[in-house]
């Protein structure tokens, strides 16, 4: 069983298209910068991986997450040669914060806000005539969850084609609470390096067009073999090695592959000491050294793009399989002990022939998801 990815769109701090982002990642260009609109006096952490698109520098505006979502879907539809009429096409949107930033601007500064602007269906109806739209607030596993549910819709005969997308703009309450909770103030997001001090948020949106089987002659970015999802039911914010191992085993089973078949892993790699040690330990057991797949963690350059991060990793994975090129983990010089046996790409992009990629995404609420993507040749 597989599904074809026929269109991709994305924007992030390091690029405005999937190819643009991938080129930045391979060149080791990150998008970290000083907080653009939040009052630095109020925070310990004063950097993030923001998109610089505000009309007036230093002045925030509502609706950015929705704007990026539409831009990413526009790109994906054009890339797939799909019409912009989505009246019959399900659109599944994964997000952590929805339009939370717009709600903050309404509450704090009196910016206009309608209740129906808090879910993305309103904008999707206006732009594409879409009515089979679903906003899933599934934390940082949201887009891989949405991808799994999109494959189910195709399997169940509910649709031949679905659009799966994600978007998040940084909000003060989420950024601030994370800042309050992290022991240290990260200078950057440094996954799996001993210098990792925690997570820093990033902004962006991503979309893919997923179909049962592409029309003959139509370019396919990658073949999705399986997406698994589960919940730890252990802790509201900390990862659980058993839940992660279970979702990976389930995903491999669904894809009918062994861990040894995997050539590349796009790690969740959020840069928190807890995530990095847990994820690395589970993967070290699953992929014993030496050998094992190449691994990378794009959040080292995009920041943690929250709900969209899993699907953004998947889009970058598709390009990696196509080009035989893997971006490095920026800033990784001294891996943590649990990651010592993992083939993390360092310093510069690696080149390799790649057939199968695994993508990890874990989120608050103990939710885990993973996908297996196969090169389309």
């Amino acid at each position, binding site marked *: 069983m597989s599904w074809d990815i026929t269109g991709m769109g994305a924007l992030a701090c390091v690029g405005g298209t999937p190819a643009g982002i991938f080129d930045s990642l391979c060149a080791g260009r990150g998008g970290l910068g000083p907080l653009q609109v939040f*009052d630095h*006096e*109020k*925070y*310990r952490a004063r950097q993030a991986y923001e998109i610089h698109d505000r009309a007036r520098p230093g002045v925030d505006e509502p609706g950015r997450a929705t704007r990026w979502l539409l831009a990413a879907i526009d790109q994906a539809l054009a890339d797939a040669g799909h019409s912009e009429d989505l*009246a*019959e096409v399900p659109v599944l949107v994964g997000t*952590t*914060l*929805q339009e*939370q930033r717009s*709600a*903050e601007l309404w*509450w*704090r500064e009196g910016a206009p*806000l309608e*209740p*129906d602007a*808090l879910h993305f*269906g*309103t904008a999707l*109806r206006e732009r594409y005539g879409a*009515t*089979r*739209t*679903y*906003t*899933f*607030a*599934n*934390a940082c596993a949201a887009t891989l969850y949405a991808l*799994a549910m999109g494959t*189910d819709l*195709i399997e*169940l*005969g*509910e649709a*031949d084609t679905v659009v799966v997308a994600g978007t998040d703009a940084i909000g*003060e*309450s*989420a950024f*601030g*609470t*994370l*800042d*309050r*909770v992290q022991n240290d103030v990260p200078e950057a997001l440094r996954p799996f390096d001993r210098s990792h001090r925690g997570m820093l948020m990033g902004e962006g949106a991503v979309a893919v067009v997923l179909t*049962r089987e592409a029309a003959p002659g139509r370019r396919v970015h990658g073949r999705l073999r399986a997406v698994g*999802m*589960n*919940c730890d*039911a*252990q802790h*509201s*914010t900390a990862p659980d090695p058993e839940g992660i191992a*279970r979702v990976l085993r389930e995903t491999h089973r669904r894809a009918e592959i062994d861990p040894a078949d995997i050539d590349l892993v796009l790690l969740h790699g959020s840069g928190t000491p807890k995530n990095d040690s847990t994820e690395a330990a589970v993967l070290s057991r699953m992929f014993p050294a030496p050998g094992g797949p190449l691994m990378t963690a794009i959040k080292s350059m995009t920041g943690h793009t929250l709900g969209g991060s899993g699907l953004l990793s998947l889009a970058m994975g598709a390009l990696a399989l196509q080009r035989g090129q893997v971006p490095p983990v920026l800033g990784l010089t001294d891996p943590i002990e649990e990651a010592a046996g993992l083939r993390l790409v360092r310093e510069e992009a690696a080149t390799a022939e790649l057939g199968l990629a695994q993508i990890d995404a874990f*989120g*608050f*609420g103990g*939710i885990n998801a993973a996908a297996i993507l196969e090169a389309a040749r």
Partner: protein
Amino acid sequence: MSSAHSPAPARREAVVTGVGLAVPGLTLPDELLGTVREGGFDPRTGLLGRDLRHKDRASRLALRTAAPALRDAGLLGEDGSAGYTGNGDATAVVVSSNFGILDSVCSFADIIARDTVLGLAPMGLPQTSSNVIAGSVAMAHGLRGPSVTLCNGPTSGLDALYWARALLVAGRAETALVVGVEPDGEAVAKLLGAAAVDGAVALVVETAEHAAARGARVRATLSGCARGADLTAAVTAARAGGPGRTDGAEAPGPAVDLWLTDRPAGEESAPEDPPPVRAAAVLDPTASLGLCSGALGLLQAAAAVAHFDTHAAHTALATCGGPEDDAVAAVFLSGPARTA
């Protein structure tokens, strides 16, 4: 929508086997239909307890409705709070809430402006993500299957039933605990211009074969679910089925015994001729409960289940959303004698 490619898998029905309420003034679902009892849930006294400490209001309401629903379905051990007796790995949680964390988000922004981030309580971190509610419910009962949170506007509760059914018929889970919750609060009331229901509702939905295997009493069958551009489109699509429907299945509706709406009679939609639904009785739960938002579709379903408890051969339709919204959702339900 039917696919030209894959034959649908063998038909798997999704059935309701338990209902729980935590709605101010109510005790049992038949009160949604007009039965009157003394007492009822009171958030001032009902949301206390060790197990609720440090939890956001939406999670607390959800927890107070999850346990009764599981107990109603015969899935909780004798002592009530301790043991979930189903298979936790195969149990999904699906939550619908549009404004569940809005007050937390707004108050955290206020605190940062006043006291910097150092004024924030570390325990608030989970409340910055809407899926805190699903996480709380999963942790309380050890539910380790897919955990899905819908924030999908006025149709969100019925959309949660659509996705619960999809998870079940796709084989992602054998049981789903579906929760709708909308807490009240200063920001919610300001945004909506009126108080929200400040309550929660939960349904246990499982595959018909799983319910039969464990001898559970079926209370209703989800016989059609869809989202569409308007009432006619949603009802038509729901009649055609929904996730996992086979072509040979008998279409539900358009005539039903009970139509659960979200607006006063005569305001269903733009006048349509012929009307897409014929109903012997019409009930709008918001007339007595006020703004229910993401909880509404599941309160409607709970009312349908209560109706079937005394009218086992009846059918019902629930609809949410109208011309002012991005879509309309429709869910057909049928009583246990209807589907036997």
